[in-house]
């Protein structure tokens, strides 16, 4: 086995060991944090807040959907023709 191979094995052992150690610590830290927050925090629930999920910016705000818009246009036209503005 050449040197690179042994370096790679060393790196794997140290690396995976550390990654697991770190994330296991993080599991416990997170559980502890949640427990503390839920115990001492004021009882504000607000779980139903729909978090923005996607990475992408909603490209067009479009507050009125096309169907609706079209229908509105027709309604307006009717309305105007009736009222002879």
């Amino acid at each position, binding site marked *: 086995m050449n040197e*690179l191979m042994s370096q790679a094995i060393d790196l*794997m052992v140290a690396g*995976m060991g550390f990654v697991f150690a770190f994330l296991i610590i993080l599991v416990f830290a997170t559980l502890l944090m*949640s427990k503390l*927050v839920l115990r001492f*925090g004021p009882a504000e629930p607000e779980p139903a807040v729909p978090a923005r999920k996607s990475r992408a910016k909603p490209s067009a705000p479009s507050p009125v959907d096309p169907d609706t818009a079209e229908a509105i246009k027709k309604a307006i036209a009717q309305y105007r023709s009736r009222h002879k503005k």
Partner: protein
Amino acid sequence: MDKLMTLWTGSGLFNIEPGQVVMILIGLGLLYLAVRKKFEPLLLVPIGFGGILANIPEAGLALSAAENAIHFAKPQAMAALAGVLDVSYQAGQAVTPEIKEAFKAAYKDASYASISMANAVAQDNGYGNGMLYNFYTVVIGSTIGPLLIFMGVGAMTDFGPLLANPKTLLLGAAAQFGIFGTVLGAALLDWLGILDFTILEAAAIGIIGGADGPTSIYVSSVLAPHLIGAIAVSAYAYMALVPMIQPPIMKALTSQKERAIKMTQLRPVTKKEKIVFPIVVLVAVALFLPDAAPLLGMFCFGNLMRECGVVERLSDTAQNALINIVTIFLGLSVGSKLMADSFLDGQTLGILGLGIVAFAVGTACGVLMAKLMNAFVKEPINPLIGSAGVSAVPMAARVSNKVGLEANPQNFLLMHAMGPNVAGVIGSAVAAGVMIKLLG
């Protein structure tokens, strides 16, 4: 007439080299994949375009002023550079290809101070840094680009599913075997004499297994900048291929019954937990792995801005204007490393081959870890969410969901898979920190 001759001898058609033709075709191929096949277009469009720009003959867009001066090899400029770079060359001496090579080699090995002096001398002689060279220096050379992308990704990440089920962090840990397994794979190729790699190169290639674009670019810019083009292209291409790479592995390692496991609905997570979590991660990084501080620090900062609710305008900017601007420059900068002489190389093929191994190993280890965990926990975990531990947010989680639905049409795994998915981001950033600590 004279002037038309100058235009002709300075044209691309007159000067183009076969390697440049190939690289331009590769650039066009990346654009095709990005535009038609929707392969991570946000990065691959700029990378592909930057790759084409970098290979335009005579334009020297990806070269420094000194490299441009050496390319054009006018005796006066060469004489001025000879002193700075310590190459033996007399003013007036003919510039043979060997001498040009000697200058290139000397520039490559020069110290920072010499490089900056050589560029100043080249500018005095009328040469400038190429546009893409400047982009690379500012955005990647300083490491700022990937860090800002990571900040923006943090501002787009919802840790809710992870907080509801923190043990899925372990799935994100297991999937990092993809990284270190690939390092081993590279070492194996070297041992077998198929390709030559240093440990730095092997580590940089391994990070492809992290399945996270900015982390890959960051690590390779620190450990092996000459491979950044191949590594980034490989990472983004395989991230786009996740829906094809993962399902066969996932199915091979699980039984129909395991795939049909329904998981209980996630508990609601309070806003306060979401605010405190990035700070917990930051403190853990500070205590245990300072070398991951730039990556995870910026990630946590972005996430804190998102969740804290009092700096919406900063969070919006981090998720939109700022990340978009950085993405444009980052992509072009990565593209600048797709130059023929460094890309058309056996190593690149090795990187592409190892990259897919990395994804496969990561996927497998994530799934196996989930099965292992099922031996210890009460509420069973559907092993399909283990594969999401590789990162590739949110594609890998969607794959888990899709394969789950195939096994059981009532089985919605998406939110459950988001936990390991974002855990994978943290996991690969930790792995990056370890590699930089031990090798950087």
